[in-house]
């Protein structure tokens, strides 16, 4: 009995549980705001405009768990999309062009990865640089007003509907959440990520191929930006150099609100998915009630701040009342793990304490 209670308590303290409660709460609020919220068509289509954001956030989650950041994802998406459209426009087979777009995205991610993982440069500075460089590259590859006519076979990934109702983009999103969740939570590679994110030095001493893993996470992030590009292209039906511009903040919001520790070492794929649902739901509810766009931003901002404060306070309390300001990477990472905020394995034996 005691064990059951303990487990229930643990489950309740999980970040994902809080997100689910928030999603239900916002759902109730939205229902009171607008009679249109609970319509099936609305609920099904809720996530579609944000699917490309979610896919980028899934990739970014890997990077952030490993203790790094990649703010170039939106620019990678833009390059990938314009590469695809230019190749297609020049007469290349559409599927080959699609694969080429994905390869380009992965390559750009690899460049970030090599600079960060092999040359050991700070990821914020590196990806800040590539954010601008890749964006510029996109304008070089496709200047002007862009390409808009693509075969339906390709656009269905982002803009297609099953039975005119169920968006295919939603299925793509859920499929990637499950597949990447598996990689993150059920493979050795996933465990390496948490260990590196918690304490890189210790991970190196433990014989983990740190450099290789760090390059790989950026490659994954790049690849996911490419996948997001395909969905973007399908949903918006337009390839331009400014594709996904202004979406970076939304991507980071999904990751942070998803409970992924910005210092690395903890978080789950489920959390990111739920955070995306929460933000999309909140925006949808407010838009249906015709609440002004700037007010919406304030509400989302407050939600994010609350999440971070609540998250840190809970972690601190669970780390036996240690104030969050005293948290130090590596030392308290263990406490974060025991707080059960993610589904990460326990790397205590690597802490060297």
């Amino acid at each position, binding site marked *: 009995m005691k064990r059951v209670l303990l487990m229930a308590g643990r489950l309740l303290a999980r970040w994902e549980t809080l997100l689910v409660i928030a999603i239900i709460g916002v759902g109730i609020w939205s229902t009171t705001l607008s009679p249109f919220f609970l319509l099936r068509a609305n609920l099904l289509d809720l996530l579609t405009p944000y699917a490309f954001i979610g896919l980028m956030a899934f990739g970014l989650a890997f990077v952030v768990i490993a203790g790094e950041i990649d703010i170039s994802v939106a620019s990678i998406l833009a390059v990938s999309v314009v590469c695809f459209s230019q190749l297609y426009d020049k007469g290349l087979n559409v599927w080959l062009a699609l694969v080429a777009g994905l390869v380009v995205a992965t390559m750009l991610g690899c460049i970030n990865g090599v600079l960060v993982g092999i040359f050991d440069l700070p990821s914020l500075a590196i990806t800040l640089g590539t954010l601008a460089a890749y964006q510029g590259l996109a*304008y070089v590859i496709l200047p002007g007003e862009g390409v808009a006519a693509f075969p339906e076979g390709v656009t269905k990934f982002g803009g297609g509907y099953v039975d005119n109702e169920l968006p295919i983009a939603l299925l793509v999103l859920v499929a990637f959440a499950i597949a990447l969740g598996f990689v993150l939570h059920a493979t050795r590679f996933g465990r390496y990520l948490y260990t590196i994110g918690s304490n890189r030095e210790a991970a190196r001493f433990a014989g983990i191929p740190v450099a290789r893993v760090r390059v790989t996470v950026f490659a994954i992030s790049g690849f996911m930006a490419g996948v997001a590009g395909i969905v973007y292209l399908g949903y918006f039906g337009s390839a*331009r150099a400014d594709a996904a511009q202004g979406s970076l903040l939304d991507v980071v919001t999904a990751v942070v609100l998803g409970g992924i520790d910005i210092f690395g070492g903890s978080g789950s794929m489920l959390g990111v998915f739920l955070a995306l649902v929460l933000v999309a739901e909140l925006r949808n509810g407010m838009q249906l009630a015709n609440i002004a766009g700037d007010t919406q931003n304030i509400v989302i901002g407050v939600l994010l701040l609350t999440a971070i404060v609540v998250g840190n306070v809970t972690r601190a309390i669970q780390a036996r009342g240690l104030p969050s300001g005293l948290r130090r990477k590596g030392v308290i990472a263990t406490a974060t793990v025991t707080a059960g905020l993610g589904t990460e394995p326990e790397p205590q034996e690597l802490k060297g304490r």
Partner: protein
Amino acid sequence: MSRKRLGLLGLALCIALTAALVAGLTASAGRASQETAAQKKNYKMFLIPKLIGVNVFTENGKGAKEAAKELGDTVIYNGPTEAVAAKQVPFINTASQQGADAIIISANDPNAVAPALKRAVARGAKVVSYDGDVARDARTIFVSPPSAQAIGAFQVEWVGSQIGYKGEIAILSATPTAANQNTWIKFMKAALKKPKYRNMKLVKIAYGNDNPTDSAKETQALLQGYPNLKGIISPTTVGVAAAAQVLQQEGKCKSIALTGLGLPNEMRKYIKAGCAKKVGLWNERDFGYLAAYVAHYVLDGTLTGKIGQTFKAGRLGKRTVVVSDGNRPVVVLGDPLVFTKANVDKFNF
């Protein structure tokens, strides 16, 4: 239970929950089903600007609401806070979910909003674009500001008349992908080929992204990069205001003639200080007013987009559906207005 299994359980729980939310609520699906638009007198129209919090669009919104009041319709004005097509789409979707009769839109990307607009049309809405047009098959009629040809040519004349039709000029635009900006620039280039302007040379097209900071930076770069620069045309209200401020700060109001499309309220002090002697625009309130009238007449069947159809647009008088700048079907607002020291106080937007 291991953490791994707990995680998988959580994931399964979440998916089940989503599925339940979606499937379990089908009962309510019929509640606000499509009302037939036929014979309905009071139309519900949504005006989606490129972004909110910008004077021009606020004025459009006021004009549209004024028209709606006269026609007995309602206009809901809302949109994203950044000029990004991907952020306009959720507003199109939610307008459609609310059973919009008409969507009036100024698009950030003519193509990126088209699939969402077509879905809205499939659900029974009519689409009228204004200011920033959308793909032709995604709307019934485009309400155009003064023709692009006129806007381009007028601005070249405004700057030329101030610099004695001689010297280097530059253009400070919004984003490189903005359709209306690019069309105007195309017509400016065409106008510059006329013999009257043969001594004027376009040296640079800069992009300030419709953002005050970027626009100011680009203006400074123009001043540094082209010491012989005589004039700047900025066909965007954000750009021209930022450029005027930079010219004033750098004390270059006398040596460089600035013109472009600007709002009287924003440009008043610069016009009076001589930092932008001639600035033009069209009446933004009338623009929104006309767009709402067009949407109303599209809804009641008066306008179908056939060239030559006419209607009475309230206080603006009779208008005709035409071909303008090779685009069709278009309803044109009229000639540009010019604001100078003499008349700027007459306008309040």
